[in-house]
């Protein structure tokens, strides 16, 4: 019985590793959501659309401008981040004094509009985007499986980006401003910090993280207008499980749930698309603030 299970696990190990790749996207996206929620108290439902925009901007840079993957990895987050600045300044900033629900409704509406515009322009069939040459060669032999180089890169890039974000927030002066403003924005502003500008830039940074994930995703998933909305529902479950607003929580839970999903594909494939939601229900019942959340 046990041997049987071990054998099955060994066969399934590739699924688990691929789960880690999904986890990388969960982590990056929930990280951006956590950064935004912590500072703005807004649940950014447009996050999936901004992820999709990152992929599309990379695609457009390549097809209209001849600009390749590596510059796009920097440029696309900057461009989509700038779009985030406009959204925050013109619309979202008007809602801070109201209930969370209004921010959620506004960003949800924006997500639908953005997706609709892209579908109108590009159709919904999806467009290919090739990984850069250096990452497209023969897959790496891990002993138990062959892992495409690009997928390994995705995991590494997501880990580095998550770690960097965590370090900036926990260990720098800027991060101290962010943490303090999350607790008491009025007082931080009364010390002479331009909090409204900081809020705008935080939103832009969260949006840029989503776009970064979008560029990473472009060579794996086809670039299509729905790519964000199918992912974002899972990501919201990840955020709820990790604890709203917790940076560390979103990273650990993102990778962890990617793994769990992969494992479930091995043990009981039928449940792999629902396991995260089952975990979410259990966590909500046992620890409503999430695994890493402060109640």
């Amino acid at each position: 019985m046990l041997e049987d299970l071990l054998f099955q696990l060994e066969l399934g190990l590739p699924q688990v590793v691929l789960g880690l790749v999904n986890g990388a996207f969960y982590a990056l996206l929930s990280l951006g959501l956590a950064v935004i929620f912590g500072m703005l108290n807004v649940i950014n439902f447009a996050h999936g659309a901004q992820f999709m925009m990152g992929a599309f901007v990379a695609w457009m840079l390549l097809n209209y401008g001849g600009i390749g993957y590596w510059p796009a990895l920097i440029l696309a987050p900057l461009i989509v981040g700038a779009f985030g600045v406009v959204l925050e300044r013109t619309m979202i900033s008007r809602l801070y004094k109201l209930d969370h629900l209004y921010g959620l409704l506004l960003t949800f509406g924006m997500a639908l509009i953005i997706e609709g515009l892209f579908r109108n322009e590009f159709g919904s069939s999806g467009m290919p985007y090739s990984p850069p040459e250096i990452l497209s060669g023969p897959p790496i032999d891990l002993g138990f499986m062959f892992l495409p180089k690009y997928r390994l890169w995705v995991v590494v890039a997501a880990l580095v980006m998550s770690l960097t974000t965590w370090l900036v927030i926990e260990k720098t002066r800027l991060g101290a401003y962010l943490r303090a403003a999350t607790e008491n924005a009025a007082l931080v502003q009364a010390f002479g910090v331009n909090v409204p500008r900081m809020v705008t830039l935080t939103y832009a940074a969260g949006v840029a993280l989503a776009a970064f994930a979008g560029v990473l995703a472009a060579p794996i998933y086809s670039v299509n207008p729905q790519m964000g909305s199918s992912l974002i529902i899972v990501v919201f479950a990840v955020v709820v499980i990790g604890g709203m607003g917790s940076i560390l929580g979103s990273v650990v839970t993102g990778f962890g749930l990617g793994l769990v999903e992969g494992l479930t594909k091995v043990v009981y494939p039928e449940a792999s698309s629902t396991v995260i939601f089952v975990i979410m229900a259990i966590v909500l019942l046992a620890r409503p603030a999430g695994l890493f959340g402060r109640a």
Partner: protein
Amino acid sequence: MPQAEPLLKVEGLQAWYGESHVLHGVGIEVRQGEVVTLLGRNGAGKTTTLRAIMGLVAKRQGSVRFEGQELIGARSDRIARAGIALCPEERGIFASLDVTENLLLPPVVRPGGMDIEAIYTLFPNLKERARSPGTKLSGGEQQMLAIARILRTGAPLLMLDEPTEGLAPVIVQQIGRTIREIKARGITVLLVEQNFRFAQTVADRHYVMEHGQVVDAVSNQELAGSMDRLHAYLGV
């Protein structure tokens, strides 16, 4: 000799919390280097006066001139940059920041503030607990931290809101020494106090507030002769 314009001149200051009208034309002056207190009962409008000067109430009218500059329409971050620093009644120590981070949080607005070594000399406890989360300190230490962090900014006017509230007598004495040290450095202090005895050990002048207005002003020298009047106001 004509009197130079005071460092802070507040005239006809009105403030609202939502619908309720809290300040009804407050007028005070604080001259360079003075320690001035706002005395008064709970709910007289002392804290609101400080918050209104700092730009922390949603709606305010009148005039707040600091170093000759009108600040009534300014946002709180610009008021802070102009050189006014607030130590709020609830102290406002951040739980997610350690003591050092709390101390370094307010940006320096002017040269000449205390450096971190001078602050640690004045408050040795803070040095010992540099890595503790801000809210793990005792009430007295948190108050020290709240005062220390605005000393770093170089702001020429410090507004302290009930720094002695709820603290043991020995800590109150330490805060008294701190305020005298601040004054000796030429920094101006506007102090809100309920503790009348404490106020008279540190202040040059006192304003008495009632129902959102200043109803009396006494210098510290006149204090002894005005005791009956003050007792009537303060109900002590």
